[in-house]
């Protein structure tokens, strides 16, 4: 076990592309940290830098307070699980598990013990003599996990390990990974683009975009208190609806126009009036989660929008509306599946204004 620290780490490739910019990230001893973000955001680069597969352009990496930037991958005592398993196809499961131990030149007795331990832990004892191509996707991923744990690394690195599995197996292996991490208590850095994986697995989640860390927090905090519009839209499925607006003062009321309604910002909402007063007359954004709606006619809080499409998901449904006031923008509403709706019909939607979020013109969240 060990703590991990990215200190002001940047990575620029030979062709000039800046993949990581001034990344600061602390991972505690035994913590399960998930790096999540869209494709090309730099999350896999961060993992490869920590693994020692790519070199750091600027900054320093620490594992247990020891600078590791100039150490070889083996000297860092880390283990990595890859998206495509990266099992050695010409070796049996046993040989795959033994390979890292042979590289460490451990005595045969220790190699046998550890291989047996990993095989039993991951239910692979029956498959030890098989080749990877004879195994199912789930079994292959277990072998990859086995190869990672046999050497008892300080840090686990996982690069989208569930991406090649079907939906059902993904849920199963996901819980196996979580259980394994809990049991072994090894510091883990897990990369994914799937926010459901991130939210369910991570003790904390680091959201990345354009090579920068946007926010590091627990899954609940990320969802409830996003630091900027990107995090608000990335976390949550579907993400937050964010729409431009301009606040104005009408007597005691602080309000803004949305569709056919002037919405009041309540005093007891997420953000106090005192804070919002500073933004009166400025172009800012307001946001709300898809579940902050109900289909109710209310003279003060309901807006009327035409329903575009419906996605029925089983226990709930997603309703999509096009907003006339903002080009190319779409509003998503999550409702229980019990109600029936027809596309093309104009519906009254009441917004729970106490749950409104506000973002400044740079997309930074406004909190008290």
């Amino acid at each position, binding site marked *: 076990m060990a703590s991990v620290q990215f200190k002001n780490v940047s990575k620029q490739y030979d062709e000039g592309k800046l993949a990581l910019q001034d990344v600061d990230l602390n991972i505690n001893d035994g913590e399960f940290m998930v790096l999540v973000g869209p494709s090309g955001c730099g999350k896999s680069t961060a993992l490869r830098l920590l693994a020692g597969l790519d070199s750091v352009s600027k900054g320093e990496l620490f594992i247990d307070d020891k600078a590791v930037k100039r150490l070889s991958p083996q000297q860092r005592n880390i283990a*990595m699980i890859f998206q495509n398993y990266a099992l050695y196809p010409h070796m049996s499961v046993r040989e795959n598990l033994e390979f890292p131990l042979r590289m460490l030149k451990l005595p045969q007795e220790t190699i046998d013990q550890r291989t047996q331990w990993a095989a039993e832990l991951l239910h692979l004892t029956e498959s030890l003599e098989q080749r990877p191509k004879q195994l199912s996707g789930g079994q292959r991923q277990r072998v990859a996990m086995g190869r990672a744990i046999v050497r008892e690394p300080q840090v686990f690195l996982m690069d989208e390990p569930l991406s090649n599995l079907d939906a059902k197996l993904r849920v199963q292996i996901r819980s196996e990974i979580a259980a394994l991490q809990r049991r072994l208590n090894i510091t883990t850095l897990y990369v994914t683009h799937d926010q459901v994986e991130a939210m369910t697995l991570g003790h904390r989640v680091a959201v990345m975009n354009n090579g920068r860390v946007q926010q590091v927090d627990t899954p609940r905090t990320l969802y409830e208190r996003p630091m900027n519009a990107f995090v608000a839209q990335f976390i949550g499925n579907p993400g937050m609806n964010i729409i431009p607006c301009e606040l104005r003062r009408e007597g005691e009321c602080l309000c803004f126009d949305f569709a056919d309604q002037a919405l009041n910002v309540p005093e007891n909402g997420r953000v106090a009036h005192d804070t919002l007063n500073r933004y009166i007359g400025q172009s800012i954004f307001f946001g709300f989660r898809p579940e902050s709606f109900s289909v109710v006619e209310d003279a003060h809080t309901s807006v009327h929008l035409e329903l575009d499409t419906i996605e029925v998901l089983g226990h709930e449904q997603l309703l999509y509306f096009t907003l006339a006031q903002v080009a190319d923008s779409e509003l998503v509403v999550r409702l229980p599946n019990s109600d029936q709706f027809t596309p093309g019909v104009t519906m009254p939607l009441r917004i729970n204004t106490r749950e409104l979020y506000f973002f400044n013109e740079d997309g930074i969240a406004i909190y008290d």
Partner: protein
Amino acid sequence: MIYLYTKLRSLISYIVLFSLAGLFISPMLLMLIGSVKPEARVLSEAGSLLAFVPGDWNLQNYRDVFARVDFARYLFNSLLITSLIVLLGLLVNSMAAYAFARLQWRGRRLLFALVLAILILPLEAIAVPLFYQVSMWGWRDTYIVQILPFIANAFSIFLFYTFFLSLPRELEDAARIDGAGTSRIFFTIIIPNSKPAFATVAILTFLTQWGVFLWPLMVTSSESVRPLPLAISTFYTLPPLQWGDIFAFSVMMVLPVLLVFWFFQRWFIRGVASTGIKG
């Protein structure tokens, strides 16, 4: 009606394909049958279909070959030279290709472009300067002069290079994290997963080198180091001109090639498919 049309079409296809197959295989049949015929019949039946009909068959032509040249010596020379070129070539060219495909070093692209440029140079273009060079080093009439210049081969490097690029990089990353260095990764991970490329290069190199004639003719003079193609040439140049003997010699010369192909073919076919090289 449609059934008849389909039948007719497949019949025509078969006729065309069988004719082509016959055309391609006929020289080999002629060689095989001619090698066991008496010399008089080989010549008299040469212009007719009777050339393909065995009759009075015997092994006299084979006995003549062994009587006229030291076949075993030539065979040994050819096997030694070709095998060493193939084995050392597999090692050297695959290592060079791996360095070009996977390792990061200054000048890599420029050097690889130069290697590709060498592809278009035939041996004949460099034979004379090469001849002067090896003469200066006193290497004439040796095995080494027939082996060394042909170990590094641009085409082999190119074949290996394209194959290595197709291997998943994660395999090497995983091995590196597991603690393997570059040479261990190459020998324990890359080579075992590159059998098709190795088989393809082995067969193509063997085929090319087995029939090399010009270079050994230039640099060797004694029978003790000369390969089979120079031996068979004596059957044309020194009387009597016996076609039966030439056929018998040719059959014996082709056999090792068939054996090599048979041994490597299961990987070779996959290799040709995966490297995109047409056979």
